[in-house]
């Protein structure tokens, strides 16, 4: 009914609208006349404070201020556009003060009372003065305010927010190095058999017997991806076996840098196998960076040349199944390894052997059989134990915190989550006991109301289903 009433009003409104429009025009004219008069500058902001941003390279200054009294959202009409911040380098006392714009009204909009200045000029050895003005709607600037004393920054040599992370890293590295040391001393380290790696020699042998080539695909990522590096380390071994057996190996790549690395690796492998004469550059060649262009080439190559063994070792994405299924259809023996969890199921389904995640990284050590390298695998296991312990402690703490509603427990959970496992400055309210207590009390008070709201949402959800 209310709607009908409103609509009737709307349809009878043209006259009123016309009147409004007329008033609007008059007002605009009025504004014009105001503009013509000398503009009054807006009220300036107050208390400009600057601080050096902690834990950085000394290249950021944090500024804050109190809003201008004209910056009031309850006013009918905006009086300001925003603020302007000027910066001057005052390191050399003899030089004339030259202010330049650090941030304009587009950045310092209304209600904005802080700014982080990380201009390239800001360096630890220099000091700066800042000047802030409020800018009226007509562009007039207020009286400027300045810092009491110029600010200079310091370079910080260590980020304390990352100290836990450093500790954990050193702890795991220590165990890895310790096991390397023990292995060198002759301590026997048992490593379980990895079927996929046992199959490498078999696959190369088969290719030799059949007189067909071996295809090695190092994934579709560049050398800055550790999976590509891991793939190339295995290529070194496969290349050597191929050289020993006198089998033909081809390494088409989707990145130029990978091609050059693969060439270097193959050359050395052939050299170490005593067959430098058998090596030639065209064993590894670049195809294209384009993912599916590369796939088209590989599947085409497989269908034409019918390689007897296919190795897919590196970072793979949507192309994994296309490659593995094509390889399967030509009856090649296939070994895959990747650390892309999403692609593992495809490789497992279509390949003879798959190196799952960490097995792939362990491959190089496993194949080399060198004690130092095997030591790293044992060190990794200690890392897993540490990870497992952290998970158990975290689960127990979080469960205890939610059951007991104890602020200390809540603090411990947050500390574990944000300080121990985090690498950035944790939000203050999560690690302040009093604030946690306050929040918990508030939550307890609001629990009834929330329950109702939740019930409501639940029913609504069900109706939609």
């Amino acid at each position, binding site marked *: 009914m209310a709607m009908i009433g409103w609509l009737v009003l709307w349809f009878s409104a043209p006259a009123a609208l016309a009147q409004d429009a007329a008033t609007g025009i008059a007002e605009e004219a009025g504004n014009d006349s105001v503009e013509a008069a000398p503009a009054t500058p807006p009220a300036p902001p107050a208390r400009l404070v600057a601080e050096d941003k902690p834990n950085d390279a000394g290249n950021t200054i944090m500024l804050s201020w109190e809003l201008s009294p004209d910056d009031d959202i309850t006013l009918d009409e905006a009086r300001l556009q925003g603020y302007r911040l000027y910066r001057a380098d005052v390191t050399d006392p003899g030089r004339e003060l030259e202010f330049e714009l650090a941030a304009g009204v587009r950045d310092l909009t209304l209600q904005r009372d802080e700014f982080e200045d990380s201009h390239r000029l800001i360096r630890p050895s220099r000091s700066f003065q800042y000047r802030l003005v409020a800018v009226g709607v007509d562009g007039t600037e207020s009286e400027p305010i300045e810092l009491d004393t110029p600010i200079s920054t310091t370079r910080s040599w260590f980020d304390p927010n990352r100290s836990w992370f450093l500790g954990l890293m050193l702890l795991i590295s220590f165990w890895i190095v310790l096991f390397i040391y023990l292995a060198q001393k002759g301590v026997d380290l048992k490593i379980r058999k990895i079927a996929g790696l046992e199959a490498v020699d078999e696959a190369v042998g088969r290719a030799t017997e059949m007189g067909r080539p071996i295809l090695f695909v190092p994934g579709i990522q*560049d*050398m800055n991806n550790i999976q590509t*590096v891991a793939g190339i380390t295995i290529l070194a071994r496969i290349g050597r076996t191929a050289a020993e057996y006198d089998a033909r190996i081809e390494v088409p790549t989707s*990145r130029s840098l990978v091609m050059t690395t693969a060439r270097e690796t193959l050359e*050395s492998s052939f050299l170490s196998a005593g067959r430098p004469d058998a090596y030639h550059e065209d064993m590894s060649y670049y195809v294209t960076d384009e993912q599916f262009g590369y796939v088209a080439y590989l599947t085409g190559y497989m269908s034409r040349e019918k390689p007897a063994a296919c190795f897919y070792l590196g970072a793979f994405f949507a192309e994994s199944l*296309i490659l593995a299924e094509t390889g399967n259809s030509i009856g090649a023996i296939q070994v895959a390894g990747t*650390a892309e969890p999403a692609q593992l199921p495809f490789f497992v389904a279509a390949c003879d052997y798959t190196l*799952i995640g960490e097995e792939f*990284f362990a491959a190089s050590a496993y194949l080399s059989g060198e004690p130092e390298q095997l030591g790293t695998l044992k060190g990794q296991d200690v890392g897993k134990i540490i990870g497992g312990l952290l998970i158990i402690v975290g689960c127990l703490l979080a469960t205890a915190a939610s059951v007991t509603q104890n602020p200390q427990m809540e603090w411990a959970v947050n500390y574990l989550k944000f300080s121990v496992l985090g690498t950035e400055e944790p939000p203050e309210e999560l690690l302040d006991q009093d604030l946690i207590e306050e929040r918990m009390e508030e939550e307890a008070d609001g629990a009834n109301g929330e329950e109702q709201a939740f019930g409501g949402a639940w029913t609504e959800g069900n109706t939609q*289903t």
Partner: protein
Amino acid sequence: MKRTFPLIIAAVAGYVMVVAYFMPALQQVREDAEEWFNILAAIAMILGGASILGMHLRKVSDRRAGWGFSVVTLLGFLVTLYVGLFKVGVPPMPEYPDRAWTGEYIAQGSALWWSFEYIIYPITATMFALLAFYVASAAFRAFRAKNLEAMLLLGTAFVILLGRSYAGTLLTGWYAEEYPNLTLPGLTDMIMGVFNTAGQRAVMIGIALGIAATSLKILLGIDRSYLGSRNG
């Protein structure tokens, strides 16, 4: 020397990256190292281009089987390179109508845009779509209920395949109000959110440790197989 020098470069760059992570003062050095990689990769592109040209030109000159395709590849490569580098057909920016080359290299209507829109677009989409066929043939061949684990996997596949399509709503929608979590879409969400997440996390932790150990091996120079050393 040929081995030692790259080893030193790899180790120094690696240590700098690690140390700089904890030392804000070295942040710039770290960013520079990252930029160096991009520069190297860009230079390597020239080697890649040379590799393509060399390989296919040899194939054509030797009249090896399929040399005609190499001619097509070479033409495609050179034409794309030309129209991209020289911004063929790129209209100038509206602000500078009399200055050629001010427009975006892939501006609508340009030759490169045309080749992208009407050649690369459909071809890559087709290649990706082939996945549907391969998934079907893999499902037919690989999903065998050989043992208990395989049966569990099979059961999960059934729930997900039905739950992820309209069939899930159709088959179990009638009791969705009473037991929303027991419908096929509900079960799918639970499998993905609980079992899958747990498994994924475990795999991810293993991978992360593997990456750490591999990096350490390379930094310490224990694993030199990427340089083709004997220990590979």
